[in-house]
């Protein structure tokens, strides 16, 4: 790779623009910000003196020393959101014309959601509250999804740009932060694993109406966060993959595999939130060995070296987004019924990714958490000989199942929690079989016996125990 550098000093001596191809860290020119001059596509990113990437998963501030959105156009970087004391989390609309972001106009303001034209201009307040609203993302129906801070942590919500029809997507205590809207219309978000109970960062999926929450993959690692999906219409190898950080490394979920695959990227600590440039290269935030701050570099898996795009010796440069049109994801047509409850059908509760149970459970107990966070039993339902059971549960509440033998002993229990939306009807193959497991084509025995689910809403008192 050729090495070439050019630099210009911006007015006031604040900005230094440069083109650096495959330049090693020690050869970086001095100055505050460096970026590639010839790059024509505009890039918006967050610059912050200190980036606490996991803070939101603990309900804390990610940018304790502030943050500022920058835009790089035609080789020059400048503040993208003048007039804001803090700004971050840029999300470009699908037509490439408008940008959503989190911002604070005044010191002491909570984070609010703002909208501004991609070329800049006067920002418009979209959403404000008494607590932080962060990480807005465009949805295919013109709404946005974001995380709002409530007493229990960050929750996900979708809302119209005019603030209309807010819809909560997450119904567990904990922190939930959106990462991306996938091409299939689902919201990719991060939270602690096990869901609703753990603190290890993990990525999950949920439909735009809050239904169908599940792990992206079930090979749960030691900490996965900040995932984004590569464009499906991209010519790049791995189109449609979800690229994320695992620890500090880059990794990806491919459509074909049930386990994550490593990304053989150059050494460094990666901050995730990978953006894809029009030429198929990935725009990465990385901190190379010995370096204090994250910089932005362009790379793709078949490139020998990286191209430095922007660097700031005093700030982390993270959350890059490319200002360009992109394919609109598919909209999710909600089919939730107008019920207060949800129905859950398990085809064979014995099946699990961690090995099938040899005993057929006699019953399943459902549990929820009350408002004080105490675990409460909702009752039990019988499990059929083929492992199937069919229950009705209160919607929009924490839920988990425990499989029991005939004596009431626990055979297996879910470590985490999930929820079923009001009006949702959901089926799983087994308890934690993983997304790679498709259902067997047979009528579950429970549906041959009854088409009425066992009421486990907690409103009917103790329920049936003992199956088959």
């Amino acid at each position, binding site marked *: 790779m050729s090495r070439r550098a050019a630099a210009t000093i911006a007015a006031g001596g604040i900005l230094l623009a440069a083109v650096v191809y495959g330049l090693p860290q020690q050869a970086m020119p001095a100055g505050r910000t460096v970026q590639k001059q010839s790059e024509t596509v505009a890039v918006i990113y967050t610059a912050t003196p200190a980036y606490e990437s996991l803070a939101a998963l603990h309900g804390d501030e990610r940018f304790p020393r502030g943050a500022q959105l920058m835009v790089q156009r035609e080789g020059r970087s400048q503040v993208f959101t003048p007039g804001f004391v803090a700004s971050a989390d840029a999300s470009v609309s699908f037509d490439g014309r408008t940008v959503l972001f989190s911002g604070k106009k005044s010191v002491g303001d909570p984070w609010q959601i703002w909208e501004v034209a991609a070329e800049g201009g006067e920002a418009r307040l979209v959403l404000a509250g008494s607590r932080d609203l962060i990480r807005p993302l465009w949805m*295919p129906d013109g709404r946005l999804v974001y995380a709002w801070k409530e007493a229990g942590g960050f929750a996900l919500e979708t809302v119209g740009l005019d603030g209309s029809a807010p819809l909560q997507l997450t119904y567990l205590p904990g922190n939930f932060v959106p990462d991306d809207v996938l091409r*299939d*219309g689902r919201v990719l978000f991060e939270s602690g694993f096990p869901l609703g109970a753990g603190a290890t960062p993990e990525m999950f999926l949920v439909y735009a109406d809050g239904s*169908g929450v599940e792990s992206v993959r079930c090979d749960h690692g030691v900490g996965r966060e900040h995932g984004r999906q590569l464009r499906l219409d991209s010519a790049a190898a791995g189109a*449609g993959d979800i690229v994320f950080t695992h620890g500090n490394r880059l990794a990806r979920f*491919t*459509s*074909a*595999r*049930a386990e994550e695959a490593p990304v053989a990227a150059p050494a460094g600590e990666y901050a995730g939130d990978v953006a894809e440039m029009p030429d198929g290269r990935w725009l990465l935030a990385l901190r190379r060995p010995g370096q204090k701050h994250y910089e932005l570099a362009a790379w793709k898996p078949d490139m020998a070296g990286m191209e430095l795009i922007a660097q700031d010796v005093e700030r982390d440069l993270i959350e890059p987004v490319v200002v360009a049109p992109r394919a609109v994801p*598919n*909209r*999710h*047509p*909600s*089919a939730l*019924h107008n019920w207060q409850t949800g*129905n859950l*059908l398990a*085809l064979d509760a014995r099946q699990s990714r961690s090995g099938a149970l040899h005993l057929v459970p006699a019953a399943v107990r459902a549990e929820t958490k009350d408002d004080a966070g105490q675990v409460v039993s909702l009752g039990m339902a019988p499990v059929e000989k083929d492992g199937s059971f*069919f229950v009705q549960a209160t919607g929009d509440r924490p839920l988990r199942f425990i499989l029991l033998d005939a004596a009431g002993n626990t055979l297996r229990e879910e470590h985490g929690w999930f929820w079923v939306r009001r009006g949702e*009807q*959901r*089926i799983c*193959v087994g308890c934690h079989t993983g*997304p*790679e*497991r*498709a*259902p*067997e*084509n*047979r*009528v*579950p025995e429970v*549906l*041959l016996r009854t*088409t009425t*689910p066992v009421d486990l809403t907690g409103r009917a008192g103790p329920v049936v125990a003992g199956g088959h």
Partner: protein
Amino acid sequence: MRRRFAIATICAAWMCWSALWKPAATVNAQLSEVEQEGYASPLEVLLSPDGARLYVLCQDTAQVRVLEAATGQVLQTIPVGRQPRGFSFSPDGRRLFVANSWDDTVTVIDTQSGQVKATWAAGFEPSSVAEDRAEKTLFVADRIGNNVTVLDAATGAEKLTLEAGRGASYLAMAADGSRLYVTHVYPNPTPHRTPPKSEITVIDPGRAQVVDRLLLPNIAGVFHVAISRDGKLGVAAELHPKNLVPLAHVEHGWAFVDTLTVFGADVGRSVEVPLDELDRYYAYSFGVAIAPDKSRIYVTHGGSDCVTVIDTKKMLAYIREHPEPFAEDLSASANYVVGRIAVGKNPRGAALSRDGAKFYVANRLDDTISVIDTRANRVTQTIKLAGPEKVSALRRGEQTFYKAYSFQGQFGCSNCHIDSTFDGLQWDLEPDGFGRDIVDNRLIEDLRGTEPFKWNGGNPTLVKECGIRTEMYFWRSQNYDDRTLTDLVLYIRSLPSRPNRWRAANGVLTPAQERGRAVFYRTIDKLGQPIPQSNQCGYCHSGPKGTSQKSFDVGTGKPTDNSGLLDTPQLMSLALTAPYLHDGSAKSLEEIWTVYNPHDRHGRTNDLTKDELNDLVEYLRTR
């Protein structure tokens, strides 16, 4: 019939109505509506034995087009019968046989002159054809006949018929001529609410006898089958539906998975291997080919517009090293799929060059042939067949019908309506409740005047049936825009009834059919008692399509049904669409009355003898 759409304010719906309303047309007139569009619609391709010429079977123009393989230049155009569906060479390459599915004939073409030498009668809906190595016997798979008709290869005289699977359609002859393999597109009958089953019928061509039936559990819809040159490996493309599980969502292979059955000495048994991935599906696997050295298997996907490339060694190793079953594991294909190659719209039949270097794919719905360099795994040439440049609304509708529109591209209309017909399956749809309102899938031919749709009559128009309802409860993903929906509805409403093989061309009924007709329209039972008008067959099943377009409770509801009130189904092509009743619980027409009509609520039938019921069946088959 002149019924206004309930949502007439929707512009798209009005456009549909305006465009579609016309007086009832004859079958031929409707067929010509499609054919007059002039699209070639290449369904199958063959390479001449020397590899110099490419033969393309053009379905909608009813032609075989002969192209120079290297350039794509047209050398000859040979007219054949209506709706040709399959073709093959004689072993010496001197003759080309074409199965004409709507004429019930086989066209015999002299490949030297390009002249049609004969047209022979075959069974009901010939769909493919193969000659034995001795060139004495011709085998024809008949889709409606559910059999293989055996013809004398010299005269075309019928020798016998061999029972095959339901919807027998595709044939593959082993290279040494020792075995002929037959697949079928509709599942064989199984007890109600049990998994479908299919088979690969194995015929000894020399003796013209069925010698084996390879059972394909869980499969409903088998398409092309290919045999390796050494005869040790067979591969069939197929559909694996999930019709018995409530269709509550689509992700994780909840509606369909796309699989291959591999069989033969290399495998030691029949094994089903999946082709899909966790987040991406390869819908409507249709054409298959095995490389001459067996190193690769190629599969076309009519719903996903691509070709899958499989490393055979890796696949066989996976089969050896892992416990079955594989079909439910969406991560399995990562172990043996080595390529996905985008091609044209609705890729169907395909052919490998003799050296295996090129793979030709017939893209039925954009009139092209993709030529794939198998070493590079990429399309190196796209041959455009002559035809209209403009893509009509009808054509766009057909493209939509065959595209896998559902969440993550798992399935499309054509998954359940095989070749725009039906699938012989019963489904448990989610909105009615899990395990409730099990519904039999209905034929979608000649739908004009059969509204409303759904068994509960809940959808007054195709716009509603195919639009919002489909988006919410089938695709579970964003549907089409208004124009696309209009095109789709236009296409569906253009589908004609196929020729009725049980009704004489002149319309004259046989004596048994006449007797059955009299039973159908009788007003007095055999005891001399008047039959209330509302309990006469012809009351509910009135009009030219055999439906009053109203709902009735005829006592056929089940405890798991939310209502006994059911839309009166049309009667056209009734002979094809077993099982019967709204939930598919009646295995045959006879069972409608002998099992499911104990109180004469579904017409007065309990006074009829078995012979009289047989007469009624004979008549109904003419509808």
